[in-house]
């Protein structure tokens, strides 16, 4: 029987298949963060140890301070609790001050912990990011985190399958973020609910690993708990030589990984196709990631009243020209080196009209960007260059947007209050955020890229 990439990886992890259709799956990598404190408490309440400390990794990111010390005792306590739990259970911990620290969905791939064909879980919905390598990676809640800690396994019913095929070439200034916002705006936030997504087509093959990570990251915003891209040479080139990537068994691993492709006649429960050339730089205008459109468009005439009231916008208003108060470049969606380069390409030699924060995805990316001189471009433009963490994407560390303020952001959620109570968020690519910084308004980045190397 023909099988999809998802089917192949799933089948290789089934320990026990229950008659009711639920499978017990082996988990290859489990990432925990400060928010996992509920799960550790559940484990302690049952007096259970962590079953596989060698496959469990702690990452300080959600509450990580980006400017010096933690903003409150509460936040410091969350960071300490993870350190204590990691120490108690003998987990490797990428803690504050570790040169490998960063956002979990950035450093997993960066360290070579994320590999093709693995099953990866974390108590965070953006775990779908790791699927960019052809892994089955998904977010889970605290009860499931405690289950994985206790057993290194998880019960799952196989989701339905969906393939999103994007063929053709993306235009200049159009990125993986725009592809993501384009399909989500077309299908809606529940569009991929109950489905595992495989992204395919020539435009996807043409994406770098950074681009694929962005695309898979946003799967959950369209309701998809899983997003995957089949491994290819781009994948292997990224993985090779990473600290935790195989070296002695590289040849065998690489051959196996390249075999992880959907069969030609594999059937999907749902097929969606997009033409890359039709996708423009895209921005959200509302309070849900599907409330998005091309920057050349306007707030729809039938836009939800509730979203418009919150965002302080009117139906029919052109998106280009909406004034912003600040910008944010960061998060597990768009804070990798390629993202920072794209933003810097727009900002080079220009001055931002509004303040903003740039938080690299990891300490290592921060260093790399500084070696390339990108930090100076951001600082000279007037933006603040800070340390790595989830920062203003979720505001847990105290980096928030003030009530009523409008932020052009490279993050993943424009929910009400996501960046702080009353904050107004517009999602877009790093280049588009840089363009908003330069002009002080949402604007089409493409004219700003003319004559520049993007």
């Amino acid at each position: 029987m023909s099988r999809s990439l998802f089917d192949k990886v799933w089948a290789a992890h089934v320990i026990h298949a229950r008659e009711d259709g639920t499978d017990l799956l082996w988990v290859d990598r489990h990432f925990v963060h400060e928010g996992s404190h509920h799960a550790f408490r559940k484990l302690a309440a049952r007096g259970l140890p962590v079953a596989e400390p060698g496959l469990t990794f702690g990452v300080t990111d959600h509450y990580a301070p980006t400017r010096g010390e933690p903003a409150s005792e509460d936040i410091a306590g969350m960071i300490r609790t993870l350190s204590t739990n990691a120490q108690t259970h003998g987990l490797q911990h990428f803690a504050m001050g570790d040169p490998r620290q960063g956002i979990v969905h950035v450093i997993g791939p960066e360290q070579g912990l994320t590999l093709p064909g693995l099953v990866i879980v974390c108590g965070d919905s953006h775990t779908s990011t790791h699927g960019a390598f052809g892994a089955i990676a998904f977010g889970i809640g605290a009860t499931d985190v405690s289950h994985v800690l206790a057993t290194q396994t998880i019960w799952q019913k196989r989701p339905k399958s969906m393939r999103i095929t994007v063929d053709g070439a993306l235009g200049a200034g159009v990125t993986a973020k725009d592809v993501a916002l384009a399909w989500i705006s077309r299908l809606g936030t529940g569009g991929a609910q109950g489905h595992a997504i495989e992204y395919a087509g020539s435009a996807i093959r043409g994406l770098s690993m950074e681009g694929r990570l962005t695309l898979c990251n946003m799967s959950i915003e369209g309701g998809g708990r899983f997003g995957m891209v089949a491994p290819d040479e781009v994948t292997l080139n990224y993985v090779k030589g990473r600290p935790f990537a195989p070296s002695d068994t590289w040849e065998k691993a690489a051959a196996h990984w390249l075999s992880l492709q959907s069969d030609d006649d594999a059937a999907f429960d749902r097929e969606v196709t997009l033409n890359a050339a039709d996708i423009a730089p895209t921005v959200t205008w509302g309070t849900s990631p599907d409330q998005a459109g091309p920057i050349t468009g306007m707030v729809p005439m039938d836009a939800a009243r509730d979203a418009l009231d919150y965002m302080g916008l009117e139906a029919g208003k052109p998106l280009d020209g909406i004034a912003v108060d600040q910008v944010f470049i960061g998060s597990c969606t768009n804070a990798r080196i390629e993202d920072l380069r794209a933003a810097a390409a727009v900002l080079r030699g220009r001055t931002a009209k509004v303040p903003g924060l740039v938080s690299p995805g990891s300490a290592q990316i921060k260093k790399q960007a500084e070696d390339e001189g990108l930090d100076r471009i951001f600082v000279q433009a007037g933006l603040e260059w800070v340390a790595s963490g989830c920062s203003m994407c979720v505001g847990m560390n105290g980096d928030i947007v003030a009530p009523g303020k409008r932020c052009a952001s490279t993050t993943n959620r424009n929910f009400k209050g996501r960046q702080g109570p009353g904050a107004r968020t517009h999602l877009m690519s790093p280049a588009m955020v840089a363009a908003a910084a330069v002009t002080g308004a949402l604007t089409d980045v493409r004219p700003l890229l003319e004559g520049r190397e993007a």
Partner: protein
Amino acid sequence: MSGFTDVTGIPARLPLENVDTDQLIPARFMSRPRSEGYGPFLLHDMRETEPAARLPEGAEILIAGRNFGCGSSREAAVYALVDFGIRAVLAPSFGDIFASNAVNNGLLPARMSQDALDLLDGPLRVDLAGAVVHHAGGAEPFEIDPVWQTKLLNGWDDIDLTIQHRDDIAAFKTRHHAAHPWART
């Protein structure tokens, strides 16, 4: 966890789509210990501007809109509902991770079409074994994955179930790591 029994009462209504888990509990409350109770944080910020978000005290059933609980995997969103006293949410669809978290905490995520939800009138009785909601005007069926239905009815705990497969797990690990040595670290 004890098994799910029928829930009876006047439902609270939150007829909005895409109520995400950031609305159900804003991130800033998530550092609090559960022992304090998460009920007061339920829909905390939304209550300021949205009258429907001020759920009546004592409500055990919530009728909600499409894609309820989308977004973040925070189980705290379920804790807030459960600690407030909600035992069943009836909605046209749910965020996948939210629904899974709900079942893990004995909260029923029952899927019903908007048309069926609109028919519900007066006090309700949610019968999980029969997958049906009884109301003044009759009875409307709801959808629940049969695996989740069984799990909720029995109050099963996954760790207890999994530990019975201890030997299978150990054997799998040996095989899996022999075939895919890079899966070790």
